[in-house]
């Protein structure tokens, strides 16, 4: 599923300008604990989170996450956006809560990073 399709399904806005909207995403995980994200790691995946700490970007960088969706319209600060830009990680913000965002993508056929 492309990031463009994900953005449409989640009514999401794109936070950083240089985002590759046609990027292909193959799986997703939803978590606020970064070790959980790394436990379920998978290449070319999407992270759905409400956490806006800079370490979210580092976690994405290490765990093979290609893009991040912040739920509940959360917007990270300038430092996080800058780091995401350096690492070429697109950032989206959705008005949905984590449950609805995850369910919407699951219903549209997006598999879990964990495979079950």
């Amino acid at each position, binding site marked *: 599923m492309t990031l463009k399709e994900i953005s449409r399904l989640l009514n999401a806005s794109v936070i950083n300008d240089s985002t590759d909207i046609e990027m292909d995403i193959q799986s997703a995980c939803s978590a606020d604990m*970064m070790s959980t994200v790394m436990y379920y790691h998978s290449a070319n995946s999407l992270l759905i989170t409400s956490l806006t700490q*800079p370490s979210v970007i580092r976690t994405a960088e*290490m765990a093979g996450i290609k893009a991040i969706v912040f739920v509940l319209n959360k917007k990270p600060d300038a430092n996080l956006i800058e780091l995401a830009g350096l690492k070429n990680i697109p950032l989206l913000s959705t008005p949905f809560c984590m449950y609805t965002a995850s369910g919407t993508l699951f219903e549209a056929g997006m598999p879990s990073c964990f495979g079950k």
Partner: protein
Amino acid sequence: MALDIDHPIEGSFQIIGGNFDTAGAASSQLKSKLVELNVNEDVIRHAAIATFEAEMNVIIYAAAGRLSYLITPTYIEIKIDDMGPGIKDIEQAMQEGYSTAPEWVRAMGWGAGMGLPNMKKNSDEFKVDSVVGEGTLIEMTLNFPE
């Protein structure tokens, strides 16, 4: 496939405890090194995760620490030693979900009790030595696929 390098490559990074702003910088530099050397993508991800978890433990619990690595044609060895409080019961600390992290650390997305288990899960060889009041040494080896 073995790496095309003439001699082993060594390096190290200092890690400052409590500095969440630059957390992950050491792991990121090691990851860049592995990318530069054309290491297998899956091995890079496993090494990056294992290293980042260890780096975060230094930042959360210790005053300071050091990450050092040795890259050979067939494996990478990663060591993280710190000047921290040490681990009282290593067996308990290896249980998934067990954490002594304070609430403010959890609010930053850490302290899920998955750090040490994630390091073990992502490495081929894993060893932890710790002395309470002195510090902890983590040693991990990841083999490159043949």
